[in-house]
Each structure stands twice: as structure tokens, then as C-alpha cells.
């Protein structure tokens, strides 16, 4: 575990130098987290949550903590990662906030590094209160290095008109690691949409280790979209953890196109009664890509509804892993939970693992789940061909439908169109 020691060493050097100006509570948080990471080490495939995913390429690699970029890309260079020109936007390059590429809004849509001192109470109230670290070495490591990332705060009853864009780019040709840390707080009865994008202007085998915490207050609504378009050589490890209040609505959308190895832990706690949650995800993989989505929906209160839909389209030698854990706590009566995971295998070398895990401790609930893994349905192919559509186009159409079903649930039209174009482009290559 030489690499664990290397990362801890790099933490020591960083903490005693650039990060030393942080408030004490933050320093304590970091110290506790690096100790946790040191204790846990990297996960291995003997652990239940990591059965299908080996992080050896990360654990055995050597990643330097990313330094501030020597060259800031122009807005023109990053435009293809943006969804719209208008609205608030926070852009991070190699983990560092770029004021010149961003359109922040006072201390509500700002870099975390800024608000850690300017809105200390609010940040302290929420930061690292939701994303677990006790058994999550990657989140512990991220928390040890917490310094910058996106902060979005929507005050009670406010509505943000345009989607807020959070863009994380890695540049350069060095094998670096970034630890973006994001905090989203939607106060009571507020409403917002967010698009969080991870991409690259580099071809190197870099590593992104991101954590996003999302708090949705009573009666609030958040439409949250996360687009992972890392380079095909990149390693992407992430945790997204949400916490919902009473009668709130949270729509979480996840799209994973990139990365050589990607692991995303998604946790959603429905803490107040009457909440509605949609978890809607797509992974579209080819080559040797491996993407693992590990989702946990925690029904901790009664009368909540959760609908989870994940579709995987796997070509060539790619591999998709989906775990859908649903916990219904004692007393979470009238829970209505629906989960589906459909995997389309476009090649005989592609592989998908799908495992639902239901833990139900209440008796008056409705929980359903279903998963499929397989090639295109020959009946559907014949149906399309019988209408005059050629076989190749029919295959493309059916495959596109697999992705379009997920994209169709997204309300942000320009994002949907952008993703649709990416999907079509990928399918045209086949």
C-alpha cells in the first residue's frame, strides 16, 4: 500500500503549506479524514460493495495533487462543455476556481474556498454532514483535501431562473489527482436546477475524486444533472449524497460517457415525509471502459416516493455495474419505491452486472424492482424492419431509444439536446 502512504505524505506537505490558512474546524475535519483514509486504505474486491470493481489502477498508480493550471483555457475552448450561455456558472480547472470563466452570484453561487471564510456558519453547518466517510476511503480522502469546489445556496422561497452550471476540467499532460468538493443547499420552498459536468482538455491518465453533498429543504425542488464526460484514459471516482426534507422534490440525473474506470456512489436520504425522488441514470460505454454505479436510496420517513431508472448501453469490451440498494426504515410506511435497471449488450464481449438490494423494515410499503441484461430484442428488430427500416438503422434506433428513454426525463432542454447529440454521435461511430 505504498500509494496510501504517498497520498498521506502529499496531504502532509499540502496541509502544512497551502492549506494552513483554513479555520480550525476545517483543519480538524481534514486531519480526521486523512486518518480515516489511512486506516481504511483502498477498497478491494473482497468487500461486498466493491465485488465487481477493482481500483488497482488507482491504488497502484502515482498521482500528484494537481497544481494551479499554468494556462487558463479560453471560454471558446470550454464552450462545448457548457449547456447555455446565460445563468450562473462556476468553472474549475485542475480543481481551482477560475473567476475569469465564471459568472458567480455574490456568496450564493460561489467557490467553496471563498465561502469557507465568508459564510463560515452555513458551510460548517452542512459540509461533510451528509457524505459518509467511515467506510468510504475515497470520500475520506476527498474530505482530507477539501479546499475548493462549487457552493450553491438558494435562499428560502427563491427560484433560480436558469440552470446553474458547474464545470470541472482537468488539463495538462501530467498524471494528477483533483478532489473537487461541492455543497448544494436549497433552502425551504426554493427551486433550482443544476448541471454538474466533468470533462477534460487533457489526454493523460488523471484521476478525479469528487464529492457532492446536496441538501433539499422542506417543500423545495431541485433538478440536478451530473454529466461525466471524462477522457477515455481518466479515472473517475465520485460520491453524490443528498438529503431531502419534508414534501420536497429531488430529481437526480446521471449520465456517464467517459472514463476508463469510473465508480460513482450515489446516496439519497429521504429524511422528511412526503418527499419525491427520481434517480435517473444512463451509462454509455465502449472500448475497455468500466463504470460502476452504486446507489442507495434510504427511505427514512413515511409517505415518500422514489423512482429509480438506470439504463446501460455497453459496447465492445466495456463493463457496467449497477447496484440498487433500497432501505425502508421502520416507520417509513406508505413508501412507494420503484427501481429498474436495463442493460443493453451490443457486443458479446460486453458485460453487465445488476444487483438490486432491498432492505425493508416497514410493512405497509410498495417496492418493486426489475433488471434486464441482454442484446437487442429480435422481435423489436423485426418489427422495425417490417416497417421498411433497414437492419442497421433499426439497431441504431433501438439503441438510441435505450438512451433517449433516460434523457427524455430531463427537463433542461438545452442539456437534453446536447446529450442527445453526444449519444447520436457515439452511435454513428459504431
Amino acid at each position: 500500500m505504498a500509494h496510501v502512504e504517498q497520498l498521506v505524505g502529499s496531504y502532509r506537505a499540502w496541509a502544512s503549506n497551502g492549506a494552513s490558512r483554513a479555520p480550525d474546524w476545517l483543519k480538524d475535519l481534514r486531519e480526521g479524514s486523512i486518518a480515516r483514509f489511512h486506516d481504511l486504505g483502498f477498497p478491494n474486491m473482497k468487500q461486498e460493495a466493491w465485488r465487481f470493481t477493482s481500483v488497482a489502477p488507482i491504488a497502484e498508480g502515482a498521482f500528484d495533487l494537481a497544481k494551479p493550471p499554468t494556462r487558463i483555457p479560453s471560454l471558446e475552448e470550454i464552450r462545448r462543455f457548457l449547456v447555455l450561455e446565460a445563468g450562473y456558472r462556476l468553472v474549475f480547472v485542475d480543481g481551482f476556481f477560475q473567476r475569469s470563466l465564471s459568472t458567480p452570484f455574490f456568496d450564493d453561487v460561489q467557490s467553496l474556498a471563498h465561502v469557507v471564510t465568508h459564510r463560515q456558519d452555513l458551510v460548517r453547518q452542512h459540509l461533510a454532514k451528509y457524505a459518509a466517510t467511515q467506510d468510504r476511503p475515497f470520500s475520506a480522502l476527498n474530505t482530507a483535501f477539501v479546499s475548493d469546489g462549487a457552493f450553491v445556496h438558494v435562499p428560502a422561497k427563491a427560484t433560480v431562473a436558469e440552470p446553474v452550471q458547474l464545470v470541472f476540467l482537468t488539463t495538462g499532460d501530467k498524471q494528477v489527482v483533483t478532489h473537487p468538493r461541492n455543497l448544494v443547499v436549497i433552502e425551504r420552498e426554493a427551486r433550482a436546477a443544476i448541471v454538474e459536468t466533468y470533462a477534460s482538455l487533457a489526454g493523460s491518465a488523471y484521476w478525479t475524486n469528487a464529492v457532492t453533498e446536496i441538501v433539499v429543504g422542506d417543500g423545495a425542488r431541485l433538478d440536478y444533472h451530473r454529466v461525466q464526460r471524462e477522457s477515455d484514459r481518466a479515472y473517475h471516482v465520485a460520491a453524490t449524497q443528498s438529503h431531502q426534507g419534508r414534501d420536497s422534490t429531488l430529481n437526480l440525473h446521471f449520465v456517464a460517457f467517459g472514463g476508463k474506470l469510473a465508480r460513482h456512489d450515489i446516496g439519497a436520504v429521504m429524511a422528511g415525509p412526503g418527499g419525491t425522488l427520481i434517480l435517473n441514470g444512463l451509462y454509455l460505454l465502449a472500448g475497455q471502459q468500466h463504470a460502476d454505479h452504486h446507489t442507495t436510496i434510504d427511505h427514512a420517513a413515511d409517505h415518500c416516493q422514489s423512482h429509480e431508472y438506470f439504463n446501460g448501453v455497453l459496447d465492445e469490451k466495456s463493463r457496467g455495474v449497477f447496484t440498487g440498494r433500497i432501505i425502508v426504515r421502520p416507520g417509513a410506511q406508505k413508501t412507494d419505491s420503484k427501481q429498474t435497471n436495463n442493460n443493453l449488450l451490443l457486443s458479446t464481449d460486453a458485460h453487465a452486472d445488476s444487483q438490486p438490494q432491498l432492505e425493508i423494515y416497514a410493512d405497509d410499503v410498495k417496492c418493486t424492482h426489475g433488471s434486464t441484461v441482454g442484446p437487442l430484442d429480435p422481435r423489436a428488430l423485426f418489427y422495425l424492419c417490417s416497417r421498411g427500416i433497414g437492419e442497421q438503422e433499426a439497431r441504431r434506433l433501438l439503441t438510441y431509444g435505450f438512451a433517449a428513454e433516460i434523457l427524455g426525463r430531463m427537463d433542461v432542454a438545452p442539456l437534453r439536446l446536447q446529450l442527445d447529440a453526444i449519444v447520436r454521435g457515439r452511435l454513428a461511430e459504431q
Partner: protein
Amino acid sequence: MTKGKALLEVQGLRVAVAGNEILKGVDLAIRDGEVHAIMGPNGSGKSTLAQVLAGHPAYTVLAGTAKYEGKDLLDMKPEERARAGVFLAFQYPVEIRGITNSYFLRSALNALRRERGEAELDPIDFLQFLEQKLKAIGWDDSMMNRPVNEGFSGGEKKRNEILQLAVLEPRLAILDETDSGLDIDALKTVAETVNKLRAPSRAFLIVTHYQRLLNYITPDVVHVLADGRIVKSGGPELAHELEAKGYDWLRDAAMVS
């Protein structure tokens, strides 16, 4: 009976699925504009005939020929048959996730238009075209933006097949038990629409288990298929006779002959 030239001519057609011979020598000739009904008990091979004419890959042709517009139909891929004007309304229409009915229909229509050397329709032109078609059959567009057949009721699925028929304007429309699973109101709606779509340049082959659809669509010819062979053909009155007597007397007759 009308006297056009033969649009479809099937001779001595023998077909097997998974090693079992289902059609044991079928002869059938349909002329332009005619409506033929194929009736028969379960397992007689009605659906096999419909599917094999549309080119379903699960069926193996053992012997015989099927000429469509004088060409060898059996040698054509399913999409080539569709582009040549053959349409099959499925007994069990397939659900297509993520593709809206309108997108699907436009893709299919454009495939046919390309074949005919006509310009493809963009979404806006298609919408206008579709509105005309819907108006002509008196239907609304409520099914157009839903994924193809997904979550449709049995009746909606069958209606959707007929809608495709109306949009794609085939020369030979094969209806495979379109009436099964429909309540009487849905059956009437479907039948009325089929009647509106009857044209001198369009023939129908209606496969049905029951006579009741033929109360609303009057066929030119009725065939009875039993044990893989057409054992009797006649006018519309044959359907009523079958309704009254059942199929057994014909099966016995077939064994005697």
C-alpha cells in the same frame, strides 16, 4: 369479385418453424383491391402465413413460391418487402422504449419515401402529413408522443397498427388477428378505419379466428385454413357458415378429400 391482375400469388407454400411443418402447401392469389379473409382454428397456421409473408426470420420456407407484383417475395428482406408495399399489422405489437410513435413513424415513412425516390419529410412536414392522415381516419394525436406501444392497452396497440397502416399506405396490408383482444367498440373503430383505407390499389389479407370482424369488413373472398392447408374458399357467406357450424365439419371434409 374485381378483376385486377394478381398482386400476390402464393403456390404450394410449405413453412416450418423450429423443425415443425406448419404450412403444408398453401395456394392463394390476391388481386389489386381485393379483401381476403383467412379463417381457421387455433394452430391452423394463419399467423404463420401472415408472418412468413412479412419475412419473419424464425420461419423456414421448405417449398413453394410467393410472388408479389411478379417478384419473388420470399427472396426479399423484411424491410425490402415493406418498401415494396407489404405491411403486417402485428398480432402482438412490440414495445419500443425511448422512441416516440411520431419519431418511429417518420423513420419508417422516410425509409419508404427514399425507396420511391421522394424527399424525406422533416419533423414539421411530417407533422402536417400526420395531421391529414389522422383527420382522414378521425383519430387524434394522443398516441404520437408516447414511446411506441409502451404502456399501451391492448386496444391502443391494435389501433396503433392501423394508424401505421394509414401512414405507410401499403399495397398489401396483412392484418394478423387485429380483432383479437378488442372489445366491440374498439373492434368497430378498427373496422371502420380499415374500410376507409380500402382502395382499388390496396389489397387486404385479414387473418382472424372469429367471424365478428367480418360483420364490419365485408371480404371479397374467405378462405379456411386447417392443418396448414386452405381447405375451402368462398364468398362472404362462408364466414357466416363457419360462425354457425364451427370448423370441425371442414376439417372432416379436408380429411375425406
